[in-house]
């Protein structure tokens, strides 16, 4: 579904990503785990085309996407949920969803606002509320719902649990599991190993822009050495 090879990226002169390689199969939940500033968000931005990589190959459903514009990548079925949420604060919940709306994708059950409201019940209760007057947790739900409106086949979730209350984090775990059941692939970025362990099938550990470890989530959970070297705070 998603395959990245030899990905390098720079901000100005700073070399941020070095030969990042990863894959995600259909229906798989993969986590990219690393500390602050490791390069998780940068990887996500390269995937969706907001940052042009300096070299490397990104393939989505076998198609090269590393030179495409963000909208073209999104239309192929890659959904992006940014870390900073980037809700349209002047727009209502319904209007935010409208911006994300794209035609149905063959083989996937299409998302409608109503179907999303069963997934995120509290959003359904504030359809006409402007995005700017919602809590952080509600906004996080709305960004995910907005991206799902595009009927993506694979979703990039950049630190969805960041700054959320424990109940909301639980809801997030449920959501990701449901997406997996729907047959979607999810590439998740996280600092929180505990959260990652609840949802992910496989994990990549990234540090200073390099992939340091690759394995199943359960293997990582048991590998004290790797966790001590790259993840402990």
């Amino acid at each position, binding site marked *: 579904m998603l395959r990245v090879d030899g990905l390098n990226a720079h901000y100005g002169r700073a070399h941020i990503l070095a030969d990042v390689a990863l894959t995600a199969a259909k229906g798989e939940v993969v986590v990219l785990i690393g500390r602050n500033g490791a390069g998780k968000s940068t990887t996500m931005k390269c995937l*969706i*085309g*907001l940052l042009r990589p300096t070299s490397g190959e990104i393939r989505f459903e076998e198609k090269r996407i590393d030179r495409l*514009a*963000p*909208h*073209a990548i*999104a*239309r192929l079925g890659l959904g*992006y949920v*940014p870390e900073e949420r*980037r809700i*349209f*604060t*002047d*727009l209502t919940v319904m*209007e*935010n969803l*409208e*911006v*994300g*709306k*794209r035609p149905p994708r063959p083989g996937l059950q299409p998302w409608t606002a109503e179907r999303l409201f069963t997934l995120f019940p509290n959003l359904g209760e504030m359809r006409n509320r402007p995005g700017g007057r919602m809590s952080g947790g509600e906004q996080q739900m709305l960004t995910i719902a*907005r*991206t799902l409106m*595009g009927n993506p086949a694979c979703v990039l979730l950049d630190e969805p649990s960041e700054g959320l209350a424990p109940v909301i984090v639980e809801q997030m775990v449920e959501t990701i599991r449901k997406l997996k059941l729907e047959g979607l692939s999810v590439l998740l970025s996280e600092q929180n190993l505990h959260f990652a362990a609840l949802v992910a099938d496989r994990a990549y550990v990234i540090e200073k822009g390099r992939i340091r470890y690759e394995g199943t989530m359960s293997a990582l959970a048991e590998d004290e050495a790797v966790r001590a070297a790259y993840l402990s705070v």
Partner: protein
Amino acid sequence: MTLADITIQLLNGLAGASSLFLVAAGLSLIFGVTRIVNFAHGSLFMLGVYIAYSLTDQFGRGSPLAFWSCVLAAGVAVGVIGFVVEILLLRRIYQAPELFQLLATFGLVLVIKDVVLKLWGPEDLLGPRAPGLRGAVQVMGKSFPEYDLVLIAVGPIMLGLIWLVLNRTRWGVLVRAATQDRDMVGALGVNQAWLFTGVFALGSFLAGLGGALQVPREPAQLFLDITVISDAFVVVVVGGLGSIPGAFLAALLIGVIKAFCIGIGDVQAFGTTFSFSKFTLVVEFVVMAIVLVIRPWGLLGKPAGEPRHTAATEAPLKPLPGWLVLGFAGLGAALLVLPVFTQSYLLILLIDVFVFALFAASLHFLMGPAGMVSFGHAAYLGIGAYAAALMVLRAGIPMEATLALGPLAAALGALLFGWFVVRLSGVYLAMLTLAFAQIVWSIAFQWDGFTGGSNGLIGIWPPAWAAEKEAFYHLSLVLCAAGLLALRHIIFAPFGAILRAGRDSPLRADAIGIDLRRHQWFAFTLVGAFAGLAGVLHVFSKGSISPETLGIARSVDGLVMVLLGGVQTLTGPVVGAGVFIFLQDEIARRVEFWRAILGLVIIVLVLAFPQGIVGFLRGRFMRAAA
């Protein structure tokens, strides 16, 4: 004034406000989504006027239906023109620094002006009156044109329609979303390019429609582009960038205040006559200055609408390499001895180059190191020039003294205006400088008894020792070179370093206890003095001065020079001034439609060198050297 008079003026103001609102709404929409300040918006309005003139003149005399179809068709035609312009030009420069976009749209202004001149000729053209609305109605015993009543209704109707489009259509929702975060809209699968094209076409349509609606009221004239764009800027800024209701409110406010100034006419008070009708030219700028100082983001605007960096991001300043210093010294020496070899027109042209190199360098100091973009820098050139001319003519002060007093006068003007200006930033700051320049311009233009009004002043020649072209050439060369060196010195001095630090991270500068505003205020005053010196030299080299010296067009010339050369280096504005003066002279002498050629050259340069000429060369050579 009776109650009836007041009512009539109010109605007049409301009628005038409708067109203004349409133009401003288009400008605001375009800015909101594309972040481009479209200088050519007044030109699109003007195109609307001319196209509607031709259409209604040909087909619109018969029935109301024919007339209104013509008006609508003119709007649509301008919308189509906007569509094409966006695809051919703007689409290529969205990634360029904001100022280059501005420059490109200014190139468009020049092109459109000459196209209109070519197609319709220089005379004012008065279109037919609207069939079915040729009469007048009685309002409290006074007659008021029926057509104007209809216009009054058009404003709110269009406001309602725009609201519906933005709130009740998917396209409108996308536009509002993109106004807030266009990259996110792209990442959600929306093709920004077409969204931008659509918005630009809609904005152009609104401008064209605004123009077309004016046909029965006012003649089509060639200067409409500049007057309308400055009016529209004012409305948009007063209302708040990106706010359509704000633009509506501001258009009403300004339309009504203007109409009242005309209506009041001359008033006797305190033994003198105040002419309110003369005040009309500046009143909107006064309103804008007041609003910006009280509410820096306009009446209904939001602070979040602030655009990204207005100044081009630049690499840290580096001292010139040795070979370049030698090169400049050689060039200076060559210029010094040049008069031995030629007595020609070249010297006159070079004096212009020196003067404008200094002018452009002072603007560059403001835009580059100090991070403040001025749309009205010619005001200080003009104050210096007028001060010198007035001192010579009215007080018999010798030129030598005016070389110090002229810059002083300009510095005082900059000190006064600068106090307001440094309170703002970005596009708002630029607009306020424009407003002040316009105020200075109106004073020069209207105070016939003192400044000579639109004719200006003549007979301002240097004293005998500098009267020869050759001597004045040397004087200008030495003074301008000294000015440039001084500016360069200041850029590298601690003062310049503080300014640059403040520009790059105002918060940090604040945190380490630097009063950035005060430094900026001082910088504004300082560059005012340098521009004033250029102005003094300018007036003595020409022997005359007119209000054009400090008009908007002259300020834009300065911007073009700086941007042509590139903001990154001080060499930039000097090269830019040289290229600009020679180009203008060459083209103006050879072809009739020099403006269009100049405009096209500007557009091509922006497309080819988004970093400016010197920035481009430097990139080349430094890379080659590395």
